[in-house]
């Protein structure tokens, strides 16, 4: 059972070019019904029907968690990916009907925090916009440090500074670089939680710096925007279902399993949450483990795979599904 089993029919109410690489998409329910409330940091799964290909990509909700009339997401165009963002940029227009899942949150604020310290890089800003709206209404101290390559690429920087004033600090790579993480993380009151979302390197730097300074893991939160990578097509045998499926080059193994009608659990669709962990019955070949979930031993054993982001090459792969 997963959120993307029960979809909400929506219409694209607006498409806004935020800058040269980012577009914002706004959705309303096709019958004007209220959309589900959610918590800051939540994402929706957007179903994309691109000819014969059905993709399901997760995007953070940036709209206010209190706005039940519409949802907003921002998508950064990535021409090297599997085509999801390209589809959104090129094919999605106002008036178009789409299906989305109810919101799911794997990057929620810890409501016990005495202060929320948010560190965003590039398109990683999106979940924080919803979170700041929430933190602001709860009256809890928060601070955003937002780094982007350049002012022209820094989506929403101006509007965030207008809305949240002193709570927001912005950094452009081409004008001095990002925040001094050691200084920043050495000077936070006890009870602060840090949240980071952005490029892999930035996440690793924040997590490592915080850990080295003595922050407990329970106070460090991060979300990767990980899309299933593309690769060569491959076949898989689903042992319980007794069927063979083919995974297309731009299709994830998870999507191929779903398309076959075989039940499979999933949640984040980005290799982080562990829900889709599947046992491998036979592996005669190599598994490309693209997730953040399995440990080194599990990967080496070839007895586990995360179908949402991982791929296979070789003679035979059989899964316990």
């Amino acid at each position: 059972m997963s959120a993307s089993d029960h979809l909400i029919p929506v219409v694209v109410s607006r498409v806004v070019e935020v800058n040269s690489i980012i577009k914002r998409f706004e959705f309303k329910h096709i019958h004007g019904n209220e959309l589900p409330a959610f918590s800051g940091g939540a994402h929706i799964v957007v179903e994309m029907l691109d000819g014969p290909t059905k993709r399901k990509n997760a995007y953070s909700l940036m709209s206010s968690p209190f706005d039940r009339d519409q949802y907003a997401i921002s998508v950064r165009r990535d021409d090297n990916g599997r085509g999801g963002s390209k589809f959104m940029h090129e094919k999605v227009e106002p008036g178009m009907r789409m299906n989305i899942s109810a919101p799911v949150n794997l990057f929620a604020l810890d409501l016990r925090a005495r202060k929320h310290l948010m560190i965003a890089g590039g398109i990683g800003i999106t979940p924080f916009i919803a979170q700041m709206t929430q933190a602001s209404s709860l009256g809890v101290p928060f601070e955003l440090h937002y780094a982007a390559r350049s002012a022209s690429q820094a989506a929403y920087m101006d509007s965030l500074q207008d809305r949240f004033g002193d709570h927001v600090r912005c950094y452009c790579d081409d004008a001095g670089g990002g925040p001094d993480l050691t200084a920043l993380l050495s000077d936070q009151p006890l009870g602060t939680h840090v949240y980071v979302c952005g490029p892999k390197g930035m996440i690793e730097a924040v997590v490592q710096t915080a850990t080295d300074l003595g922050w407990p893991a329970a106070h460090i939160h991060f979300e990767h925007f990980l899309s299933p990578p593309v690769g060569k097509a491959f076949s898989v045998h689903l042992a319980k279902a007794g069927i063979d499926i083919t995974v297309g080059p731009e299709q994830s193994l998870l999507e191929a399993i779903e398309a076959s009608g075989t039940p499979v659990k999933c949640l984040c669709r980005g290799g982080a949450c562990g829900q889709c962990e599947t046992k491998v019955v036979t592996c005669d070949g190599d598994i490309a483990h693209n997730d953040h979930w399995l440990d080194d031993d599990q990967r080496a054993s070839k007895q586990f795979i995360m179908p949402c982001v991982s791929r296979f090459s070789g003679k035979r792969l059989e899964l316990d599904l």
Partner: protein
Amino acid sequence: MTIHFRNETFRNDFTYANSPGNIPRFPFPFPEDEYMYSTNVEPHHATRAGSPFEHAFDVDEHYVSEMKDRALVLADDPGRCQALPHMETAAWDFVELVMVSKARDYPDLFELTIDGDRWHWINKPLQIDDTFVFGDSSTLPCHPMEYIGRQVQGDHAILDQRDGNLWMDAGIITAQADWSLDFDIGMNFFEWHAPVPLAHELGVFQRALKFLLSLPQGQPSRRLNWTLTVNPRLDTSPENYPKWGPDKLTVNPGNIGEKVHLRVELQTFWRLPRSNAILFPIRTYLMAMNEVVTQPKWGRRLHRVMRDLRPELVEYKGLSRYHPMLVDWLAQFDDGAPTSPGIFPD
């Protein structure tokens, strides 16, 4: 729909009973002739009209009396209703879920009118007519969790989701099968289940937690849990153990039928939207042995389940003092005939 609400007690004179029409809808917890723990969860869809599984929050003939008993428990021990400070958003999610569900499912009994954030709630059986601002606790007579908790049958725990675990950080618990909210509040999923024998080794809780952590909005689930209680007493808390403990010695072969009750918990699980917490209602149904055995299938099956129940479970569920007597008494209702699968009577 008309429900005739009974006026009955769950303490002292114990006037509680089920109307004959209410017996076949009882959520008998055994789908087969033996019992062992499992993560026996299924989607909480509307199934089987007239049953406790039809509506989100089942209202039955005991509603008004149960809420009176809750009020008595809380007057005596306010610590049965506690919420850690960060759980206020979740409490409001709980208010919304119950009010929207009840107004939808029982429009003759409950009415909800929403105008922006001004809410108008009418609860006819309890004669409540209130207006308040959603999200503003100062516009309610008490904490939102307590406010709605006093109007919905069953205990309710609200679980905060963080660090890959669930934390029992709020609850209104007045009809529990022997656990203390005041003691357990703040514990995580494995900690509050620590006293349950056998289940940990079987991996029951690991699987249950994994399932709950991924529970999506709008897709609630349910399962049944059970024990036995002597007298139809809802408040079998550890706090009041000196009050109900001695009841176990009053059971004899002549009074088993009226004294020993099958106590079933219909547990449901809901993802709450604004807080991302999990609401965990524990709705208790009580039925005396005399009432249970009016359904031949249940009489046969209950005998078999009780006869073959593992000793660790007899002990943990607190049945030791009268278990052998109960098995003997139930034998008369078991002619050895086969029983149909599933929980409902034939």
